[in-house]
C-alpha cells in the first residue's frame, strides 16, 4: 500500500513547532490541489468526484485541470444528486477505492446526510469492523457577498455529533496539504472542511508528500495569559487579535489550532488552559450546538479547577446568514471580537 510509509512518518508536532520557513511557498488552494495531484499519482484507487470538478474554474482552483492529466474517468463531474452520489462514493470506497468527494458549498451536503451519517459513518461499526469506508469528503465553507442563508453555512458543528466520522479543519497551507493526504490515506470517512477565505493564504509547503497525524493540534503562538482556541479561518483572525492584544493591551495569547476536531487533541488544549487559566474559543460556525460548545464543555469537565474565569466564545450568532452587507458585517466575527473576548476573560 502506497500510504503505509507516509502515515508512519506522519509529522508529529510535539508542542510548539516554529513555522517552516523553507522557500517553497504555496497558497492554501494550491496546496489542496497538490495533495490531490500527488495522491492521484501514487495510488490508482484515488479519484475525485463532485459537481464541476472538471470545470474551467476547477472548484476555486483546487481541482484545476486535474482532468487534463488524469482524465475524466478519474476526475468525475456529477449530476446534481447529492444524496445519490454520496452513496456512490461510499459504495466505491466499500469496494476498495479511495474517493475524494468535493462539495463546492457545504450547504448542499445536507442532502447527503443520510448517506454520510447512516451509511459512511456506521458501515464499519455495524459490520463489526469487517468493512471500511475510506472516503474523503471535501466541504468548502465561506462567507460574504450576500451569499445568504443557503450558500454560506459552516455546518461542521453537526458532524461533531456523528460517531464514526472524522472531522478535519486545517487553517494553513502547510496543514491542508498534510492533512488532506492523511485523510485520503485514512481508512475511515473524513469530513474535510476548507474555508474559502484561507484559499489565498500562503505558507511554506514542501514539495514531497507528507502526512500529519489525526488528533494532533498545533500551538500556533505561545503565550501566557489567555488561551485562544481557534478553528479554521478564525486562526488567522486570532493571530491578528493576538498582535493587537500584545501591543495595545499587554495581554499574551496562546493560540491553539486543534486542526482535527474528531479525533481531538484534548491534551494540547488542557495543557494550555492549565497554564493560562483563561480560555476564548473561536469558531466560524454557529454558537449553539456546535464545535465551540463541545470544546467549552470539555474544558469545563476536564480542566475545571484550572479555569480562573468563565470561558468566552466568539462564534456566529444563532441566526441564518443574512444577505445584506450591513447585516453580514454584524453577523461575522473577526479579530476585533476576539480581542474583546480576551479582554473580558482577563478582567473576570
Amino acid at each position, binding site marked *: 500500500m502506497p500510504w503505509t510509509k507516509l502515515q508512519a512518518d506522519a509529522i508529529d508536532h510535539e508542542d510548539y513547532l516554529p513555522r517552516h520557513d523553507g522557500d517553497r511557498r504555496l497558497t492554501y488552494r494550491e496546496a489542496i490541489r497538490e495533495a490531490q495531484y500527488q495522491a492521484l499519482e501514487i495510488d490508482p484507487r484515488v479519484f475525485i468526484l463532485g459537481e*464541476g470538478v472538471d470545470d474551467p474554474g476547477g472548484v476555486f482552483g483546487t481541482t484545476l485541470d486535474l482532468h487534463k492529466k488524469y482524465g475524466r474517468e478519474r476526475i468525475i463531474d456529477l449530476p446534481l444528486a447529492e444524496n445519490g452520489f454520496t452513496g456512490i462514493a461510499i459504495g466505491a470506497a466499500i469496494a476498495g477505492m479511495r474517493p475524494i468527494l468535493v462539495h463546492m458549498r457545504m450547504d448542499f451536503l445536507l442532502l447527503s446526510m443520510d448517506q454520510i451519517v447512516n451509511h459512511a459513518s456506521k458501515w464499519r461499526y455495524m459490520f463489526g469492523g469487517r468493512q471500511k469506508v475510506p472516503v474523503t469528503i471535501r466541504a468548502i465553507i465561506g462567507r460574504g457577498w450576500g451569499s445568504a442563508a443557503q450558500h454560506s453555512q459552516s455546518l461542521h458543528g453537526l458532524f461533531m455529533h456523528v460517531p464514526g466520522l472524522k472531522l478535519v479543519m486545517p487553517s494553513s497551507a502547510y496543514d491542508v496539504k498534510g492533512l488532506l493526504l492523511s485523510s485520503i490515506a485514512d481508512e475511515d470517512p473524513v469530513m474535510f472542511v476548507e474555508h474559502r477565505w484561507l484559499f489565498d493564504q500562503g505558507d511554506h509547503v514542501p514539495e514531497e508528500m507528507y502526512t500529519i497525524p489525526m488528533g494532533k493540534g498545533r500551538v500556533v503562538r505561545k503565550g501566557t495569559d489567555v488561551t485562544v482556541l481557534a478553528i479554521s479561518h478564525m486562526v488567522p483572525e486570532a493571530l491578528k487579535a493576538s498582535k493587537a492584544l500584545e501591543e495595545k493591551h499587554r495581554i499574551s495569547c496562546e493560540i491553539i489550532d486543534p486542526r482535527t476536531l474528531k479525533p481531538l487533541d484534548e491534551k494540547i488544549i488542557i495543557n494550555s488552559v492549565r497554564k493560562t487559566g483563561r480560555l476564548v474559543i473561536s469558531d466560524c460556525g454557529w454558537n449553539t450546538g456546535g464545535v465551540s460548545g463541545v470544546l467549552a464543555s470539555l474544558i469545563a469537565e476536564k480542566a475545571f479547577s484550572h479555569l480562573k474565569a468563565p470561558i468566552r466564545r466568539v462564534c456566529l450568532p444563532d441566526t441564518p446568514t443574512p444577505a445584506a452587507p450591513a447585516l453580514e458585517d454584524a453577523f461575522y466575527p473577526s479579530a476585533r471580537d476576539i480581542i474583546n473576548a480576551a479582554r473580558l476573560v482577563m478582567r473576570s
Partner: protein
Amino acid sequence: MRRDTITLTNVPKRTLIHLYKLMLRIRRFEEKIVNVYCDQDMKTPVHLYIGQEAVAAGVCANLCKEDYVFSTHRSHGHYLAKGGDMKRLMAELYGRKTGCSRGKGGSMHVVDPEAGVCGSTAIVGGNIPLSVGAALSSVMQKRKQVSISFFGDGAVDEGAFHESLNFAALKGLPVVFVCENNFYATHSHQSKRQPHDHIYKLAKHYVMPGFRVDGNDVLRVFGVARQAVSRARRGNGPTLMECRTYRWKGHVGPECDIKLGYRMQEELNSWMKRCPIKRFEKRLVNEGVMKKTTIDKITREIDLQIHDAYLFGKGSPHPDENELLEDVWNLN
C-alpha cells in the same frame, strides 16, 4: 391535448401586449443590473434570466394573483412575471431595509406574498416539493389556486424532483412543473449529467401529461401553460412542461462567459438569433398587433419604472445592525 390552438390571431391583443411587456420588463430590469453591477454596491450573486424570459412570461400570464409560484436561484424573471413589486426587488438586490426580503435574502431569496411569489430557494430542486405542498394546501382548503415550480434541467437530476412528481400524480394535485431546460447546470451540459434528452417524457411514467415546448416562443409557452393551468384548476392534476431555452449570460454574474470554454460562441449566437423578445416583437409588428412606436413607448415606460426602482433601491437605508437577530422565529 392539442397544443396548436394558440396563434397570434386567437389571443386577445391585450394578452399579446401583456406577454410582450412581461418579457421586456424582465429583460430591461436585468440589463440594468448588468450596468450597475460593476459599482460593487449590489453585493449579491445574480443569476440572470436574460434569454429565458418567454418561459416566465408565458407561464405567469395564465395565473391569478392567488396562484403560487416557487422559484430558484435564478429568481428575477419569475418574481417579476408573477407581479412581484419591482422596487422592492431592486432594493433587495442592494441589500436594503426596504427590500422584498428586508435585505435578508438577496437575489436568490425573493418573495412577494401578496403577489403569490412564495419565495425562491438556492437549493437546486428544493422548491419543487414546496410547490407540491402548496398545491396540496389548495386542495385541502378547497381553493382553486394553482401552484407552479420553475426549475432547471439541473434540478431534474435531483431525487426531490422525482419524489414530487410521484406524489403530485398520486394525489392529482393542481401543480405545474415548469422545467426550463437551458442545457447547462453551471458549466455542465445536460449530456454530462443525464443519459437522455427527453425530460418531458418522464411525465408519462407518472401518468401525467408532459410536453416539450420551444421555450423561446412565448406564445407556445403560453398555450401549453394555459392548458396545464386550466387542467390543474379543474382538478385534473399536474403537468410537466419542458421548455427548451438558453441563458445568455454566465451562470452567475453579469458577464458573458464564453471565454471559459465550456460552451461555444456559435451555440450562444444561434440562440441569441432566436431571442424570445425580438422574435415576438417582429411578429407583433409584422402582423400589425403593435406599431414600432408603441414598442418604443412601452420601452420608455418600463425603463422609467426601472429607473425609479433603481433610485428607490439604491437610495433606501441599509438595515440596522439589530435587525440581524430579528425574524429568526416568533417567541410569542
